[in-house]
């Protein structure tokens, strides 16, 4: 007789459980009706941005200043007005374009890779490639857009990773905006390299130089996101960091911290292991 005995059951991993549970609870919520605390309505923001560009005054993106009307920090975040020159920690920051430098425009967008198109079929079907970040660390990251959502496709080490779609109008108070995907790439020596990746888009009306996103990892390294402008003028940011996490239970390690500076106001968010470190949609964590 053919042996049709399956292997023993195994429990769902803690990280996957946390991620799926969070996704389910997010799905049960009604569409958020609350006002964007970082971004005023689009028309007003566009006007403010125009004025800011002309006068150097970067105001309006925080609901009109520091009076706090409706702009209180979300749970788990803190907002601290800071001078732009002290937008984030400097120790160990990977060199990237200096604050205030113009964000480079993307070169002509190459055709979307077949691997990304395939991987996105069940994530954001028929999405169009908006921009491709210059190759870094032997990998390529591209942004794909459909309607009001976007996804990230990263190809490196012979593996393609696509992210859960996010809205193009980002909520910078929401830690979900800054979630990272995680991959564990085997090395020749038998160990693993951990690859963390996140990407997002600048809110409408914000100026290129006003946004700074930095991730600080358990090994103490801080990685600053790079930015690029697509052919529609949207500014995208991407952070990728590859390191040896030393193995072991990562949930027992310090969490990944995100520092977001926009118009001189700095927010700090903490990524929860599992829930916020498994942004990928096409493979496990």
């Amino acid at each position, binding site marked *: 007789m053919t042996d049709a005995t399956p292997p023993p059951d195994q429990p769902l*991993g803690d990280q996957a459980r946390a991620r799926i549970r969070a996704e389910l609870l997010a799905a049960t919520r009604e569409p958020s009706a609350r006002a964007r605390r970082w971004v005023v309505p689009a028309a007003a923001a566009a006007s403010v941005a125009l004025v800011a560009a002309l006068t150097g005054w970067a105001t309006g993106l925080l609901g009109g200043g520091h009076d706090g009307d409706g702009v209180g920090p979300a749970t788990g975040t803190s907002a601290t007005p800071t001078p732009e020159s002290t937008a984030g920690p400097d120790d160990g920051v990977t060199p990237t374009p200096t604050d205030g430098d113009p964000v480079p425009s993307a070169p002509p967008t190459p055709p979307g890779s077949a691997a990304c198109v395939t991987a996105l079929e069940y994530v954001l079907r028929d999405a169009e490639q908006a921009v491709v970040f210059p190759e870094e660390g032997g990998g390529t990251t591209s942004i794909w857009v459909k309607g009001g959502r976007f996804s990230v496709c990263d190809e490196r080490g012979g593996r393609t990773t696509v992210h859960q779609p996010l809205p193009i109008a980002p909520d910078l108070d929401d830690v979900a905006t800054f979630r990272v995907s995680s991959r564990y790439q085997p090395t020749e020596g038998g160990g693993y390299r951990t690859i963390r990746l996140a990407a997002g888009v600048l809110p409408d009306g914000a100026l290129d130089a006003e946004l700074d996103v930095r991730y600080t990892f358990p090994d103490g390294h801080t990685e600053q996101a790079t930015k690029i402008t697509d052919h529609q003028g949207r500014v995208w940011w991407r952070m990728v960091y590859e390191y040896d996490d030393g193995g072991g239970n990562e949930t027992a390690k310090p969490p990944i911290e995100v520092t977001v500076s926009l118009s001189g106001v700095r927010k700090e968010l903490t990524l929860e292991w599992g829930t916020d470190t498994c942004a990928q949609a096409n493979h496990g964590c």
Partner: protein
Amino acid sequence: MAIEDEAGLVDGLHRDDPDALAELFDRHADRIYNHCFRATGDWAEAEDAVSAVFLEVWRHRHRVRLHDGSVLPWLYGVATNVCRNLTRSRRRRHRALASLPPPAAEPDHAERVTDRLGSTARMREVLTAVQALPDREREVLALVAWSGLSYEQAAVALEVPVGTVRSRLSRARARLTQGEAR
């Protein structure tokens, strides 16, 4: 707060209570995870399937029903449909990927911790062994022989008469005994 019995849980779903979905997930995610693994032979796809199953439950929460005080048969029915579609999608995807160079093998983090490669290989052997069975017989086999549902529960899950479950399982076992499913 935990909902004590599954009738209360179903009531909660009918009242659009997210806590009821969370409780349902906490109770049965492992069962569905393993059921979907046995359908796909891939732990990562099983994870995706679990998410899809419970999202489907929420989407159809007003149609959730009990069988002998348990929501499991209905839940297994949803999971069977989701995994069936996932498997078909995977076949299409594999055909599309056939012309591309194969990606490097990369065990995921869960595999690193729990060494799931062995179970994956084993399950794929089993799926190969039963692949000649018709889908409907393989689904009965998965529900009754692998997931431990009663004939009645499997009948609810598949929305077929109990007698049909019996005959399908009988035919599947006969085929496997005779080695027809190789």
